[in-house]
């Protein structure tokens, strides 16, 4: 009888893969064994249906598994196997994989609603196809003793499910039931108050109270999404005037307020259960949920507790991260009592510790596929395969940017991009960042030979990188953005030059000016600047990011429309600001596309200062009409310098002529897309570039992305889908650039 040695690669550990193999083998009459080892899963098999067996390993894999490779070779058993057995893992370091946390599966969701089931109403049900993973992990290998479930010895019933390969809970580390597992309660300042936490929570939410609810990766602050008074109270307490709140609802609830497409519904139901941005449609939620936005961030209940809450409450709940402004989300019970006491009227808590703080991931579906905006719970620690040519890369650690910090590790031909860590100006986030560096290095047994960071010396991430005592590669910000997109799309190391349209906030350029609206020509190794927005002073440095009108002032002055600026801003100290601009006093020249968005937003009516990052650009996208006629204006372009001056002149003429701001906002998007697409197309058409890459934070704008992709026509285009186009993906690009440089040096030696 034929026998084969089958190697399965990918995300195949801790996802119920071995029991799946066991069941499959039994069904197909295959004999042999399966075990986890450092490369993934190894199967020795013999039987008549080997071909069907190998095929099914890919096609029928459990929902959380991601099979990237099945390789097999002939094998000879010394003694023919009697049955099919699951062996203990092979050696230390065998269980190298941790999978992301996964939303409650349908089977578990059904059980908790089944009055006859022993987990009826239980907030912590899970199985190999769902449940907590990374958020409860203390160390590797991933087994119960190394998770915060170690505090809960299994009862006999759970233990027998755990031990039975035919059971859905075979080797599900967090397996638990009401007899042996974590417990949920509700407390307020006076202590624990109610026997049924869900019932009590729902009663309080219905009265307009705000609850701090401990979820999977941290605490949320929750309130009734239909209650304007509760929403206003929450905004007031959180000092968060306008930043959109995320809302949790079942798919049926969501359909009352939005019209998710098939792809959007699929993304909502993904095991990662991200927040998905959906256009408002149907009944309007109170404006306080997301003032001025055309989209709302929706997520489905993703733990049994959330399901029970949704069932009992029967309507959408705002679920915003439980933190002090700018700080990381609270994860500990004690910490929650201390920090969220002023925000919340009561706490819904449990006694399963959160070991890793993970924000909700935020994603959206564009006409060109789903796109991750913030990569966290449910997506990490997922890895990305490295593009061809990077097989021999040394281990690299890259430290990313300042505001949307994330770390990236390269090892074993894979990239591991950490979860979204946040703004490193915040002291606690900064601590979290240092912790994450040690944590990820330990978890993935990473011994970097090389560190990478941004060119900006005063990013905390750059300082930390410099302190590591490793050879350091400083990567220009927008080169890193471009490389991240190339890497995500598997563009080979020797794939040739591409044109990178990088439309972004700010990044230090090698010439000492601040870049952010460029067409870069090059590859992983290096780039040159082929085209760019005409630089204008960034008046007041970072202040220009907070006050969009400063950018309008700079643009109008540059366009020779200073008189108009005088009229528009009679109360501002323009003389001083203009002199600062002229003197270069905290007013570096910048080609930032993000700041151009701000200037246009200010021109079209965005007033005052931002209350959260990116607000003006989001506002502009939300304003834009979608039934777009041909733009009535455009940029001036001379030798690759894309000059907004003519656009501003025409824009104000059109405003004077009574054109709708929403139309002009759309025209701006189209003009920007046209100008940059033309520059990139020029490079492709003359054979200099092989493809076009779109990266930088501005490409999280779905309208801009769609317009640009369409204008690029048949040319090969790469966009971000699995990694953020903004600085959340920066570390991946830095790591790849550093790796490419190391590989080219070792080659030339």
């Amino acid at each position, binding site marked *: 009888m034929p026998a084969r040695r089958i190697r399965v690669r990918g995300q195949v550990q801790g996802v119920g893969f071995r029991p799946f193999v066991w069941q499959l083998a039994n069904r197909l009459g295959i004999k042999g064994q399966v075990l986890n080892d450092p490369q993934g899963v190894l199967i020795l098999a013999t039987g008549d249906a080997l071909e069907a067996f190998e095929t099914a390993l890919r096609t029928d894999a459990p929902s959380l598994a991601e099979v990237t490779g099945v390789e097999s070779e002939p094998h000879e058993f010394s003694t023919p196997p009697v049955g099919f057995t699951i062996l203990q893992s092979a050696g230390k370091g065998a269980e190298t994989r941790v999978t992301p946390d996964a939303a409650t599966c349908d089977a578990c969701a059904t059980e908790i609603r089944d009055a006859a089931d022993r987990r009826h109403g239980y907030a912590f049900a899970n199985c190999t196809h769902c449940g907590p993973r990374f958020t409860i992990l203390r160390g590797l290998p991933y087994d119960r003793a190394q998770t915060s479930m170690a505090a809960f010895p299994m009862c006999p019933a759970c233990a027998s499910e755990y031990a039975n390969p035919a059971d859905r809970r075979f080797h599900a580390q967090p397996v638990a039931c009401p007899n042996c597992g974590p417990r949920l309660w509700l407390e307020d300042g006076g202590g624990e108050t109610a026997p049924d936490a869900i019932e009590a929570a729902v009663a309080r939410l219905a009265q307009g109270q705000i609850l701090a609810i401990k979820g999977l990766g941290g605490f949320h602050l929750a309130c009734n999404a239909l209650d304007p008074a509760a929403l206003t109270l929450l905004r007031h307490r959180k*000092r968060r005037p306008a930043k959109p709140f995320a809302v949790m609802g079942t798919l049926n609830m969501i359909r009352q307020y939005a019209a998710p497409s098939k792809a959007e519904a699929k993304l909502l139901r993904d095991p990662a259960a991200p927040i998905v941005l959906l256009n408002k449609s149907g009944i309007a939620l109170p404006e306080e949920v997301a003032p001025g936005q055309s989209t709302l961030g929706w997520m489905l209940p993703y733990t049994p507790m959330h399901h029970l809450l949704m069932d009992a409450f029967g309507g959408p709940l705002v679920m915003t991260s439980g933190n*002090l*402004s*700018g*700080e990381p989300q609270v994860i500990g019970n004690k910490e929650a009592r201390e920090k969220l006491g002023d925000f919340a009227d009561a706490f819904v808590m449990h006694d399963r510790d959160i070991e890793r703080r993970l924000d909700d991931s935020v994603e959206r579906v564009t006409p060109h596929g789903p796109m991750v905006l913030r990569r966290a719970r449910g997506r990490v620690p997922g890895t990305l395969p490295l593009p061809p040519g990077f097989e021999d890369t040394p281990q690299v650690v890259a430290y990313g*940017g*300042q*505001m*949307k910090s994330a770390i990236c590790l390269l090892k074993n031909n894979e990239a591991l991009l950490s979860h979204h860590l946040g703004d*490193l*100006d*915040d*002291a*606690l986030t*900064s*601590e979290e960042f*240092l912790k994450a560096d040690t944590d990820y290095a330990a978890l993935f047994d990473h011994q970097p030979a090389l560190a990478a960071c941004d060119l*900006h*010396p*005063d*990013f*905390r991430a750059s*300082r930390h990188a410099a302190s590591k005592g490793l050879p350091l590669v400083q990567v220009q*910000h927008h080169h890193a953005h471009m490389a991240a997109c190339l890497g995500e799309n598997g563009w080979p190391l020797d794939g040739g030059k591409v044109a990178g349209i990088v439309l*972004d*906030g*700010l*990044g*230090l350029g090698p010439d000492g000016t*601040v870049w952010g609206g460029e067409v870069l020509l090059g590859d992983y190794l290096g780039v040159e600047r082929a085209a760019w927005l005409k630089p204008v002073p*960034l*008046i*007041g*440095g*970072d*202040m*220009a*990011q907070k006050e969009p009108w400063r950018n309008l002032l700079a643009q109008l002055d540059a366009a020779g429309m200073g008189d108009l600026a005088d009229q528009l801003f009679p109360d501002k*100290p323009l*003389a*001083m*600001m203009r*002199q*600062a601009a*002229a*003197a270069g*006093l*905290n007013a*570096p020249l*910048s080609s930032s596309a*993000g700041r151009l968005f701000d200037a246009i937003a200010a021109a079209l009516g965005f007033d005052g200062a931002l209350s959260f*990052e990116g607000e003006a650009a989001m506002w502009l996208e939300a304003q834009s009409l979608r039934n777009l006629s041909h733009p009535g204006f455009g940029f001036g372009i001379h030798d690759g310098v894309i000059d907004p001056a003519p656009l501003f002149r025409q824009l104000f003429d059109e405003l004077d002529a009574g054109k709708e701001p929403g139309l002009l906002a759309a025209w701006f998007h189209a003009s920007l897309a046209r100008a940059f697409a033309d520059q990139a197309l020029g490079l492709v058409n003359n054979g200099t570039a092989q493809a076009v890459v779109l990266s930088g*934070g501005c490409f999280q704008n779905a309208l801009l992305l769609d317009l640009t992709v369409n204008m690029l026509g048949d040319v090969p285009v790469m966009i971000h889908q699995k990694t953020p186009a*903004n*600085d959340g993906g920066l570390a991946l690009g830095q790591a790849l650039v550093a790796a490419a440089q190391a590989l080219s040096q070792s080659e030339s030696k």
Partner: protein
Amino acid sequence: LAHGGGGKAMRDLITEVFTDVFAPPGDEDQARLTHPAITEPGAQLAFTTDSFVVTPVEFPGGDIGKIAVCGTVNDLVVGGARPLWLSASFIIEEGCEVALLRRIVASMKVEADKAGVQIVTGDTKVVGKGSADKVFVTTSGVGVIPAGRHLAADQVRPGDVAIVNGVLGDHGAAILAARGDMALSADIQSDCQGLGHLIEAALKAAPGIRAARDATRGGVASALNEIADAAGVAIEIDETALPLRPEVRGMCEILGLDPLYLANEGTLVLFAPPDQADAAIAAMRATDAGRDAVAIGTVGKGRAGLVTMRTLFGGSRVVDMLVGEQLPRIC
């Protein structure tokens, strides 16, 4: 003023502008110094030097001469020394007005007298046009640290209170405002002043004071970071406690500057043990240079070298030492 090396015109100039003002006059190229304090058992000599380059050389609240004296005096006194003697060297650009030099030298004399130091030796060189910007001044200073006094950054301990003697950033703001290219109506004066009397008063009331640092270039943020590094402690300051003149705050908002990084020339941060902080503040407030003295933060047990600021909104922001100029960081 003509370029020349040791000729008669030069010697006349030196005699006329400089030697008359600085005491004691003498023909020797060296100062021979005696003072009872330097022979006291346990006393230590303190010696420091600094070069001063300021544009413009005269500004509201001072000039380069005043800074040159105060800067070096302050470098001595923050180490606990009583300043005794200074030297002063001048690099003068050809064509610099004699009247300007006179004003600079006169203001040096005034500050030296206030601080109780003598300028006992000096030098001048005239260089070609463009080789200097009007005038550069280098001063060196000698002082005596009395026996038993030990002010040093590494003495700072968790629990200590960080105190500033007055409002932040006036010097940096005044210099910006005084530059010809800025149209600032704001009437901001440099805080340039000697801090010797202030420190003596504070030490008398609070002998346990651990360390002091003048917050010159790089501002209070840099001074705090240097102390935190040297002492291996964390320092947390409170944004609401920072003393700022409304004009300076306004200017910082307009220009996007962080007052914590603005230069000062008469502002120090000192660290007092918790039980002596109030006494130190009260004593400082009784002096001219310390009328606005206030506690701005405390030393903690957090990560060594880390300076943080509790913000108006209750968050905690990292206050780093900047490598370069303030460059925008928000992507």
